């Protein structure tokens, strides 16, 4: 029951890949965290990354927009190719900056700007980076805030928002830059059942507009709903990938099975229910 199937503009005939990762490796002081990862995300497709805690999901996202610098491998994202170690120094900086203008990210820990109101959090980047006028930026900001159900918090400071409210502001802030690709790290970690719908609506809308989205999540149910493509990472390596109905409901790889054990269990003997 993937709400996206309905309006899926079949990704595999859509013009080429939005994100292509080849042999990407990353070590933190000696410890290998990502081990020659290879991923291909078609344009306009919503891909979900799942995997055990500490397997490298966040690091992978951070590598995609250059917050972490991977050691070697090639990443092509939003039409720009970053190849390491060839690319480095000034040239790397410039390239990565171009990438960041087209790739948005929603952090697991939100990282809102505490000294700015919600509204300014959303308008700062469009105005400084894109040189938009205040009006322009603010109107879009307001739309986005409505979209995530926070129209009433425009003037509030992040410190005074609840967890879920902060997370939604973070999502809106990323969208405000109208990126081609957007990376979410646990976008629903603080968002409740009800609100999740709103987030889903947002993703759906973006998907309809052919935006490429990469979502890291640990909520399989959620994954199952949004994913058009699922990648399962473990210990920094891709273990299995494919369409959700396959990877999530009957995975081939034993490691994946083990990881999904509980979810599959609920799936195959649903809880007792009293009729509605």
């Amino acid at each position, binding site marked *: 029951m993937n709400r996206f199937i309905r309006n899926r503009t079949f990704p595999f005939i859509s013009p080429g890949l939005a994100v292509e990762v080849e042999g990407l490796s990353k070590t933190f002081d000696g410890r290998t965290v990502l081990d020659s990862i290879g991923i291909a995300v078609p344009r306009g497709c919503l891909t979900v990354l799942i995997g055990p805690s500490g397997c490298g999901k966040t690091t992978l996202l951070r590598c995609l927009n250059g917050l972490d610098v991977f050691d070697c491998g090639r990443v092509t994202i939003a039409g720009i190719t970053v190849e390491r170690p060839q690319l480095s120094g000034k040239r790397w900086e410039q390239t990565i900056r171009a990438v*960041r203008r087209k790739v948005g990210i929603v952090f697991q820990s939100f990282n809102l700007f505490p*000294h700015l109101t919600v509204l300014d959090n959303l308008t700062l980047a469009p105005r400084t980076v894109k040189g938009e006028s205040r009006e322009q930026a603010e109107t879009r900001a307001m739309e986005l805030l409505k979209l995530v159900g926070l129209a009433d918090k425009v003037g509030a400071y992040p*410190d005074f928002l609840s967890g879920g409210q902060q997370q939604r502001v973070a999502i809106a802030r990323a969208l405000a830059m109208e990126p081609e690709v957007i990376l979410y790290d646990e976008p629903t970690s603080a968002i409740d059942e009800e609100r999740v719908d709103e987030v889903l609506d947002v993703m759906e809308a973006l998907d309809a507009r052919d935006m490429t989205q990469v979502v890291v999540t640990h909520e399989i149910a959620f994954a199952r709903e949004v994913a058009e493509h699922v990648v399962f990472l473990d210990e920094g390596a891709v273990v299995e990938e494919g369409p959700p109905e396959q990877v999530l409901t009957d995975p081939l790889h034993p490691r994946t099975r083990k990881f999904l054990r509980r979810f599959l269990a609920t799936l195959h003997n649903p809880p007792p229910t009293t009729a509605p």
Partner: protein
Amino acid sequence: MSRLVGGAVIALLVLTVARSAGADALERVRQTGVLRWGSDAEGGAPYVFPDPADPTRIIGYELELMEHVARELGVRAEMVQNSWDGLIPGLGRHDYELAVNGIEITADRAAVVAFSEPYYAATEQLAVRRDETALRCLGDLGGRKVGTLKATAAERILRERGDLEVVTYDSQLSPYEDMALGRIDAVLMDFPIALYYGQLNPKVRLTDCEVGEVLYGMAFRQEDEALRREVNAALDRLQRAGVLRQIYEEWGLWNDATANLLGEPQRVLRHASKYEAYLRSMKQELPLAEMVARYGSYLPILGRGALMTIAISGLAMLLAVLLGLVLALMRMYGPWWLRWCAVVYIEAIRGTPLLIQLYLIFYGLPNLGIRLSPFFAALIGLGCNYAVYEAENYRAGIQSVAAAQAEAALSLGMSPRQAFLHVILPQAFRVVIPPVTNDFIALFKDSSLVSVITLVELTKAYGMLAATYYDYIGIGLMAAALYFLMGYPFSFLARRVEKRLAKAKR
């Protein structure tokens, strides 16, 4: 360390004065049509001083004298204020062409500068308490205490006579007051001072005992032969035209010594109109209302001084803030060599005292051909010095902002510059307010040092007024109040801003 070095530096600078060459002064005066002469209005009456009746006006017999001299040369006279000790070094900076302020012609001064013909001769005048009718002259003072100014002819004269106790003072007023209070028994001072400071005190009687004699001369740079000759000629003409005599008479300064000096009859022709005006405006016991009014009348001068202090402190702080920011950035994000430069600059500046830096900039740089106006010298001296402290403060503040903030900004496509400007800096700002406030207030305080380089800021203005009205406490309090009024709003403002910014914090 510092102080010794300081001494060395200053000595060196003063020595260089004589050497430092310059275009012919006379030429310059003719071209510019201005004769700039240095003097210190803190020196007091009757030389050059704020008019007691209207302290915003500077008057004095030497001022009038110089105006006539200038007219003789066919140019306009322009007085340049400088601290008395700085008058001769100031010549070396070519801030003015000559220094005129009751400067005694002495051998050791003559070693460094060239003097005009003496333009006034003063005897040393003995003053005693009214009731001491017995005391006529030095001879009657055996074993008594006699006061005078430090390092003057009077002091030397008194010391020669081993038979009396000499007590020396820094200000013209105090000796007379101490005498009135009975701390000392007599005061020996240059005639003009005795007349203008002694006479005022009802308890004081000027005896007609005059000893010794000093000659006042105008000090020139030794190389400025031509100009000196011209001025001497002018003085000569003025004397023959009777102008000198008129001035001295109106100021009540005509005395035998000067008469002999100028070779004129001793009896006085005119009555001392200006001296009496001075006495009137000083003597009168003021009713409270007018007393207040008088204090009010100081405000313009103190105010102007305060403005100078504010202007310098403010601009210097601005410079410090900006330069400091640059230094901090160099030190934090620059390539190794920039980082290295920053560190060296920081260590060097914070290792040497401000006063030395000021002297070097003001008296030292001219030898390299860089002649900064006093204002800029002060500005740069204070600014570059405080920049160092700001730099370190900022570094602390910036480092206190979480790295995640920068990441968030960059990942929105901002350039490092934008991220810094819009995200890091505003958050660091909040952290650095207290230390920066520290420094700004310290700066207000230190800015009083700039009076050594001819600027009249609040402290100097206070000194000038206090010397005129002998009112160190009253005017002192006013000055203190002004300092407070300058500094406090700032710390107040700082507190307010802190509060406002805190609004964003839970």
